[in-house]
């Protein structure tokens, strides 16, 4: 197998995969899909990159620190939106009563969208981390 | 002023006092140790009869102060004994021993004044732990082992008692501790629990095992409290129970027989405790007013002279570091005061007139006679002869006279002598003025100890024994061996139990392996499925189980070498079992 073929195909495909992933995240409120699925797709694209170019390539694109930050910020954003519901006088995650100058259905949609993005950010970092951790450890050993 | 402060629960005084001991040092601590019993005694004098300090405790009524004429005498003597013991032990530097001793005193007082089973059990458990700590304080292997056996034995007795208490609670709905009558199961459980405390054979082995292993000062405390609390409990709950008469009489003789052949001074005294407690148990069994009076009076006197007797060999141990009679002898020249004080205890226990043993022991024997229990009467009389023989003649003879082994010795510390002197004085005082004792007994006493007939009978008996001892004194010399008693069983039981814990457990593990192998074979047979994997697993299991069994026969084998495969198999097996039972309708109610 010639790595050139794989690398070229990967380089062409990765942006499209990521785009598709983002699409799934963004369309969460109105169609099947959502943050988790989209995040996994984006994460998988990075795994593809790591497979074709080696783990260090993916590592240099999204470093360990960035992954941890994405991971934590995603979850914290989710919790924050949930807490906004309480701050607005409702229940936890009751985002439809958050006082924005928009009709309630729109607020609902926006909040689901934001939650989707938060989960997506969290998951893409997580999936990549999981993969890189396993490879990292073995490579060190060899 | 003092009326406003007192009375407080006597148990609390000692237990709180015990916790303060480590904070004090030097002279201050010595004063404190003597101060607490004095305060406690004054406190008891201000304690009117009645029931108080009752607390409602999550649905149970706890009674911490049931003060009546049965419990009060025990309270007095325990506090006096605490003072004497503290004086005897005041030179000991280590606070742990003092703490354990004071907690023991406090718990005994608590048990005596407890009016319900829950608080009684509480104090009995504290007594067990604190007296085990007194034994542990000796800090050597044999003491540790003995203390451990003591602990386990008493926990065992306590468990039976607790079972009895629970049964009692379920059947009556309350926890009031009082007279028990009837023919219920809980009655027997509670009785056994109390018999263990009172060291009635065959539950006596903890006593002869542990008391000689205590420290010189600790044994004085040990000898006074546990068995007498047991006697109190029997007097309180089971007066007039037929079986106690026989148990007591046999116990009295049994203790004497073993004491005569015993070689270790303090072990001899431990057997003699059993013998003396036998009198009290028999008296409790007789259950007449006079017998109950006798039991309590004897308990009181016994605490004094037995403490004195334990102080003697304790002082010898303190000075010479030896305990075995065959290693001692000729100490009279060096320790005359100790000897004479010890002899006061010796004649008291033998029931020589004008010493306190006489006034109480004759009371019990006489009440047996009045009841028409001829056999018991004779047995008790016989035991009293034996007591004279071993405690008053044999022990001092071999310890202070006999062959002079040239042991360097001197009189013990002054506080020990003072304590012994005080105890001896009390023995004599009660012997001469028995009225002071008779006044605090629960029932009116119309018994006159000093009739010519009784005194002459006693003196005649004792003189003949003395004569016999002079003639046979070489025959009954202690042998440097351990005499065989029922404690053999449980000395062996400890190691056997550890063997059980290690070995059958691993044998069990090997069975599990074997069963697993069998199941694999069954799979192969059932499905005609010739999987080499399965076959291999099965064979390996068989080998493993054989190895385990061999290991078990030789030495403790490692237990938990279970593979997770097996654990999952276990899980699956349980689920399958449940489901199968469900399918066959065995589980549906």
């Amino acid at each position, binding site marked *: 197998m010639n790595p050139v073929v794989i690398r070229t195909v990967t380089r062409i495909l990765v942006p499209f995969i990521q785009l598709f992933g983002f699409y799934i995240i963004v369309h969460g409120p109105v169609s099947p899909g959502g943050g*988790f699925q989209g995040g996994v797709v984006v994460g998988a694209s990075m795994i593809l990159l790591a497979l074709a170019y080696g783990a260090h390539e993916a590592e240099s694109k999204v470093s360990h620190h960035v992954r941890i930050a994405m991971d934590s910020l995603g979850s914290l954003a989710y919790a924050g939106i949930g807490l906004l519901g309480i701050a607005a006088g409702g229940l936890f995650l009751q985002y439809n009563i958050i006082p924005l100058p928009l009709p309630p259905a729109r607020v609902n949609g926006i909040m689901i969208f934001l939650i989707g993005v938060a989960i997506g950010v969290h998951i893409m970092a997580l999936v990549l981390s999981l993969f890189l951790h396993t490879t990292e450890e*073995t490579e060190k050993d060899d | 002023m003092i009326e406003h402060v007192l009375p407080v629960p006597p148990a609390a005084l000692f237990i709180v006092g015990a916790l303060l001991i480590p904070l004090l040092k030097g002279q201050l601590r010595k004063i404190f140790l003597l101060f607490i019993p004095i305060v406690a005694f004054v406190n008891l004098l201000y304690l009117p009869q009645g029931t108080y300090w009752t607390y409602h405790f999550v649905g149970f009524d706890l009674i911490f102060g049931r003060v009546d004429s049965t419990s009060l005498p025990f309270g007095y003597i325990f506090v006096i004994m605490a003072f004497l013991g503290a004086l005897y032990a005041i030179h000991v530097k280590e606070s742990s021993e003092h703490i354990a001793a004071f907690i023991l005193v406090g718990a005994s007082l608590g048990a005596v004044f407890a009016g319900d089973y829950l608080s009684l059990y509480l104090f009995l458990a504290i007594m067990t732990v604190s007296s085990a700590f007194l034994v542990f304080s000796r800090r050597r292997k044999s003491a540790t082992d003995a203390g451990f056996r003591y602990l386990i034995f008493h926990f065992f007795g306590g468990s039976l008692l607790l079972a009895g208490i629970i049964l009692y609670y379920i059947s009556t709905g309350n926890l009031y501790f009082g007279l028990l009558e009837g023919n219920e199961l809980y009655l027997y459980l509670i009785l056994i629990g109390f018999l263990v405390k009172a060291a009635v054979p065959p539950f006596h082995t903890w006593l002869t095992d542990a008391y000689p292993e205590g420290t010189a000062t600790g044994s004085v405390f040990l000898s006074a409290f546990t068995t007498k609390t047991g006697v109190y409990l029997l007097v309180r709950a089971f007066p007039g129970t037929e079986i106690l008469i026989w148990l007591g009489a046999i116990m009295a003789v049994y203790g004497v027989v073993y004491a005569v052949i015993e070689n270790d001074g303090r072990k001899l005294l431990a057997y003699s405790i059993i013998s003396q407690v036998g009198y009290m148990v028999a008296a409790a069994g007789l259950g007449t007013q006079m017998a109950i009076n006798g039991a309590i009076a004897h308990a009181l006197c016994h605490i004094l002279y037995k403490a004195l007797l334990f102080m003697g060999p304790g002082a010898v141990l303190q000075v010479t570091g030896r305990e075995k009679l065959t290693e001692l002898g000729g100490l009279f020249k060096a320790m005359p005061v100790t000897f004479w004080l010890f002899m006061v205890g010796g004649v008291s226990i033998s029931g020589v007139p004008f010493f306190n043993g006489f006034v109480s022991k004759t009371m019990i024997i006489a009440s047996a006679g009045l009841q028409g229990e001829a056999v018991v009467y004779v047995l008790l009389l016989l035991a009293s002869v034996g007591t004279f023989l071993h405690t008053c003649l044999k022990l001092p003879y071999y310890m202070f006279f006999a062959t002079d082994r040239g042991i360097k010795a001197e009189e013990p510390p002054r506080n020990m002598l003072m304590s012994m002197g005080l105890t001896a004085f009390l023995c004599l005082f009660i012997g001469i003025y028995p009225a002071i004792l008779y006044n605090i007994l629960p029932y009116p006493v119309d018994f006159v100890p000093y009739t010519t007939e009784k005194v002459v009978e006693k003196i005649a008996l004792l003189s003949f024994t003395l004569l016999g001892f002079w003639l046979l004194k070489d025959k009954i010399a202690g042998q440097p061996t351990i005499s065989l008693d029922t404690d053999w069983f449980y000395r062996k039981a400890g190691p056997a139990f550890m063997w059980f814990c290690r070995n059958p457990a691993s044998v069990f593990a090997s069975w599990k392996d074997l069963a697993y192998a069998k199941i694999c074979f069954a799979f192969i047979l059932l499905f005609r499925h010739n999987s080499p994997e399965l076959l291999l697993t099965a064979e390996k299991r068989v080998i493993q189980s054989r190895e385990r069994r061999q290991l078990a026969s030789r030495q403790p084998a490692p237990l938990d070498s279970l*593979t*997770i495969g097996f654990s999952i198999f276990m899980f699956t097996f349980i689920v399958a079992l449940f489901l199968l039972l469900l399918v066959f309708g065995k589980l549906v109610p």
Partner: protein
Amino acid sequence: MINLLPPNLPYFICITLLLIGLYTMIIKKSLIKKIMGLNIFSTSVFLFLISMAYRRGGAPPIKAEGVELYVNPLPHALVLTGIVVALALTSFALILVINIYKEHKTLDSEKLTKL
């Protein structure tokens, strides 16, 4: 008995898979194979959940005009969560196995218990 089979086929498959998973976990000595067994095992449960939710002729659970019969969406949510959990477990177990191999140079569970 025979007519019981067709409508309940997914359940039978599910039970078979479940037993295969358990069998693998019990018999296979390799730690990795045990993880595979665990995955098969949990997959069988997912299959069970999915087949439970399926209704013949049901539409995807998105509100649309003129559709009465929907596939029950809740079990799908359960399965999704279950898959996430299984993913986390598997990846963690694999990392553990890698480390075990580095430390002990073997993946045989029988040998590992003897340590």
